[in-house]
């Protein structure tokens, strides 16, 4: 069955006619060509397919595309347009070697963004809890935890302080 839906993808409104069998990750990758979102398992375990749905992280392999009509989707492509414009979270991952093959990285960056939105000063334990839905086969996680700690610090330093005086 075909179904018309309208979504906001990375800030752009798109109206599409989709096959009801598509999952959200298939919509993003195959229909919209945004291949930064990865597919590791299709069973909700690995988190490589993590996107923001109305601002909340979800595993897009477990969401039907037909079910997101009228909603906002944010993928890794919204974070930067290329190597020279890395988002501070991405820069922190690069500087701390928070990736090796990079397969898990888009999902890790989205989960980090969501975690820091909820908790700007996470402890190491908070970080491990916050990224427990994202599996990494390469790094052993320590460098990812370091990257998230660094990303949090960068975000705090660049945010205006409570008194409004800082840059």
């Amino acid at each position: 069955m075909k179904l018309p839906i309208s979504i906001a993808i990375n800030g752009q409104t798109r109206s599409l006619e989709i096959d009801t069998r598509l999952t959200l990750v298939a919509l993003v990758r195959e229909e919209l060509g945004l291949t930064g979102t990865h597919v590791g398992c299709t069973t909700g375990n690995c988190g490589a397919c993590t996107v923001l749905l109305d601002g909340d992280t979800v595993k897009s392999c477990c969401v039907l595309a037909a079910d997101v009509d009228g909603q906002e989707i944010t993928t890794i492509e919204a974070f930067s347009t290329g190597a020279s414009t890395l988002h501070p979270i991405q820069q922190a991952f690069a500087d701390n070697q928070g990736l090796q093959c990079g397969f898990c990285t888009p999902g890790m960056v989205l989960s980090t963004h969501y975690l820091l939105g909820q908790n700007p000063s996470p402890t190491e334990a908070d970080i491990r809890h916050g990224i427990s839905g994202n599996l990494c086969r390469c790094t052993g996680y320590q460098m990812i935890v370091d990257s998230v700690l660094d990303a949090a610090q960068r975000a705090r330093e660049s945010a205006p302080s409570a008194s409004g005086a800082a840059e």
Partner: protein
Amino acid sequence: MISSELAFYAPATLAEALEQLAAAEYGATILAGGMSLVPTMNLGLARPETVISLNRIDELAYIEEDADTIRIGAMTRHRDLIGHPIVQAHCPSVAAAASVIGDVQIRNRGTIGGSVAHADPAGDYLPVLAAAGATAVVRSATSERRIGAREFVVDIMRTALEPGELLTELELPKLPADGGSAFVRLARVEGAFAIVNAAAVTSGGSATIAVGGATASPAVAEVAGDASLEEAGDAVYEATEDAFGDLSGSAEYRREMARVYARRALAEARDAAANGGGAQ
């Protein structure tokens, strides 16, 4: 891509959903958070021809209280139960269970109704609801039924729901002022399903303990208020005679762990009662 053709409906009201469910000639599959259903569709294990999504039905997502009960709408997502003031004050074990389900992304999307209807033997709400003596509210286009949580799960991943019926609400009695409750679980790593999970509620002169993960539906034992932890553990052990084994543990291992976690849950529930309310 999911292989079979799919008719998809996303009604905005419960009444419409019930009508569509009644009208579906060969039955329809209900979609809540999709965290259990969509993986099985991706794997080709479930091949629904018609899916009715409840995700647009705002009237099914709520947490409300009456004088003696709290009522949770089926589409309430796991993360909305964590730290909710009504849940925390009157049924804190529901929040404790919600907070350990899967991971952040699963909790952002999965629902309590979907979890209970899925009836995974290791589901984390099931022992909590069984120990609390909760009630499932079930509706079809023409009827409404109330089913005790202990009768709702009839076998592994099978419930008392009839064709055309939806689980709409879970109703839990509030913990009495002198009561306490607790939820504890054994799992390999964070985010993994429990090997066993246990909930206990103490109130007045008795205590109820329910242990999931070992049997098709939670094993329930009631003991006197002054029963020793050993007696309570033994009562649960007896109640898990039909335990099953799998890759994460043999039947006998699960029974022993059911005994251990029953004791721990009861000890924590008593502590919570002594500290003036169900801390967990």
